[in-house]
């Protein structure tokens, strides 16, 4: 590009016009570059101004933060936050007995401690630490449910609720749905017609119906399937429904990963003399699962949101507690505060997970190239 032009004037030592750089330039480029963009900018600004000011007025300026009695909120136009602070424990653990509330707290501490320890790679690689993760679900279950052998009084699952129940339903749902979904996905790719038909039938049937019908099935029909006198816990029934539902979706996620692995990998494994299970466990699945980890996180997010449906079959998860609080005549009419608070909790959980999924996606795609 260095063609000598005879008589060319040397370029002036001047930068771009001041109007095109810096903050002013950025605003001109991104907000007012055409006449309709200018109109849109003004419209958006007024929309943002209106929303933010009315939200701040309602939630902060005119709101009441202190006080525990509903009477404290009389005569104010803004939010009545005591409805949240007064029912805080209720939102967190439901109707869990008052004097035993230290137990869910301890369970939470166990999980937080385990997550915090994961920061140090040295500890992460320790066998003891990995064992602790494996044992933790049992420990947490014993802490929350109680067990006579450990001197902890039993707490009936009727009293489980709030954030605790939401988290339990979704975490247990994912953990149990994953192996089932894995098997279903392998079965769907199987060349044995019977197994293939069974798996495809199950997956397509569950994916074709709404979760609420699956929950109805597990809560109403399941007791009919067992012999007389065999009593299934209500929470457990809902959990079974959630696992059945999530397994079908997990199966499709895993199948996507399996399709992403080159066929040659499996053939090479077979050529080396590995059996089907060896080739799957050692060669294909590690590659397949790595591809779909971000997708799995998104399906975990969907499941977390979907657990709110247990409200309809009469459990008191986070959303159910919100309705319970609103049904209390003392807090009548505090709908905005309650729903906004509950929505915020769901949002924080789901949004942080989706950010995590995006980070994983970027990290994995960087590893590939």
């Amino acid at each position: 590009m260095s063609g000598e032009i005879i008589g060319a004037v040397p370029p002036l030592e001047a930068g771009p016009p001041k109007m095109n750089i810096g903050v002013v330039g950025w605003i001109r480029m991104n907000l007012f570059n055409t006449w309709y963009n200018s109109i849109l900018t003004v419209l958006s600004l007024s929309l943002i101004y209106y929303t933010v000011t009315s939200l701040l007025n309602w939630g902060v300026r005119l709101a009441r933060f202190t006080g525990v009695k509903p009477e404290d909120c009389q005569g104010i136009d803004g939010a009545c936050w005591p409805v949240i602070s007064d029912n805080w424990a209720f939102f967190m653990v439901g109707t869990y007995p008052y004097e035993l509330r230290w137990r869910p707290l301890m369970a939470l501490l166990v999980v937080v401690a385990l997550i915090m320890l994961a920061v140090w790679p040295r500890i992460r690689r320790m066998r003891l630490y990995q064992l602790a993760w494996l044992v933790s679900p049992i420990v947490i279950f014993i802490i929350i449910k109680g067990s006579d052998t450990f001197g902890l009084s039993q707490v009936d699952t009727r009293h489980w609720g709030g954030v605790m129940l939401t988290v339990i339903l979704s975490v247990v749902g994912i953990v149990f749905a994953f192996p089932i979904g894995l098997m279903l996905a392998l079965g769907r790719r199987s060349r044995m017609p019977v197994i293939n038909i069974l798996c495809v039938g199950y997956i397509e049937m569950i994916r074709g119906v709404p979760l609420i019908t699956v929950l109805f099935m597990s809560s109403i029909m399941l007791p009919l399937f067992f012999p007389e006198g065999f009593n299934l816990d209500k929470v457990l029934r809902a959990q079974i429904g959630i696992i059945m539902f999530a397994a079908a979706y997990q199966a499709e996620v895993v199948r996507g990963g399996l399709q992403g692995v080159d066929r040659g990998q499996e053939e090479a494994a077979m050529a080396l003399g590995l059996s089907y299970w060896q080739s799957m466990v050692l060669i294909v699945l590690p590659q397949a699962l790595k591809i779909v980890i971000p997708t799995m996180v998104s399906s975990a997010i969907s499941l977390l949101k979907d657990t709110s449906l247990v409200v309809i079959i009469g459990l008191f998860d986070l959303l159910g507690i919100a309705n319970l609080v609103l049904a209390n005549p003392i807090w009548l009419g505090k709908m905005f505060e309650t729903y906004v608070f509950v929505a915020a909790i769901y949002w924080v959980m789901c949004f942080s997970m989706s950010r995590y999924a995006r980070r994983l996606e970027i990290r994995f795609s960087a590893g590939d190239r």
Partner: protein
Amino acid sequence: MTELTQEQGKVQLISWRNPAVRSVVYQIVSVVLVGFAAYTIFQNTVANLTKRGIASGFSFLNIESGFAISEVMPVPMLEPGFVSFISSIFLGLIAAFVLHKWVTRKGKTVGGDYRLVLLTIFFIFVVPAITYLLTNHIFVTETYSEASSYGLGLVTGVFNTIKMSILGCILATIIGFFVGIARLSSNWLVAKLAETYVEIIRNIPVLLQIFFWYFAVIRTLPMVRESINFFDVFIINNRGIYLPDPTPLPGFHPFLIALFVACVGVYFRLRHVKAVQDLTGRQLPVLFPSIAILIVFPGLVWMGLGAPVELSYPKLTGFNFTGGLNPSPEYAAMLMGLSIYHGSQIAEIVRSGIQAVSTGQKEAARALGLRGGFVMRLVVIPQAMRVIIPPLTSQYLGVTKNSSLGVAIGFPELVSVGGTILNQSGQAIEIIGITMAVYLAASLMISVFMNWYNEKMKLVER
């Protein structure tokens, strides 16, 4: 697998080492296990049902229900004449298809000869119409009341589900495309606003959103006396939204037929225009003739019949508004919840679909001299649609399935009506079975249709 064992020869055929043998054994074992589980479940269920004194079977569908459904509509119940009507439609379609194949084989097109076009119209429309007139009873419409049967209640529920899903899908698509394109806007503020909307809405459970719209917004609207009133045309209060209702007068059906004929006319005109362009490269005017056909012909019929539609406005009579179109608060809340939630999901689909089209395509189109709108319409959108359609299908399925959440706020759709019947009659297995079957059928139909559409779009690819 079997060739391998025969080549090796030494491997015994009936041996655990033979994959074919293993596969057969696995399959037999799984059949036995599933069969045993099914048998046990069946036995237990029968024992439980007899103990509770519940008779199984579908005869309960004819029992009088005795409960009211808040939103009813005339529901078609099929008559014997329906069979001959449906078969005449099928025969007409088959005849038109055969004609089409026969003409194509001769190297011509149906659109090329007006006699063939008329013959096709005769097969597809006139034959069923004649059958319809001859049989005159293909269905009767019934409206559900407390004296109706459980069966009619379920059918009403299905129709409410359909009513919910169709409008929900349309609104969600509109919101989704609007927001999805806004996310790619060159205006930074608009893009950020759209992103905020998507990130907030899609991370909150849809049921919570429906509760919010229903309990916190619609239920707290002003009472009837203090309704928000726009010139007596739109009225909003806590019993719902009131809109003017177009009531058909006697001449309405001919007008509908005229509108339909105009649509068919525009369709054939578009095909003709495309054929001419493909053949000669000449672009015939499309927009104005189409509008002319769509407006002038039905408009003439409209005027000839003397405006066969009357708008009925809501009026305050006693303690409530009557007349006009009045979607219930439940319907409005469901519609808002579903369309806003799924709109945010569709927005993401649209955004990633448009971004999936490589910039080279746009640059090439511009290099060919196409102007902005044409670049989008002829180059970007057709390619983006191919990426968009499969996930869009699953969103439509999601809207249909999530319409079942109406049960939580008392919108009388299928699951809700089914739940009431279940509580009254105790026929759990039958009701849940029917509900699942209806949703499965709907899912199947939507995915078959969308797969067909997807195939059609794919054929353009080389």
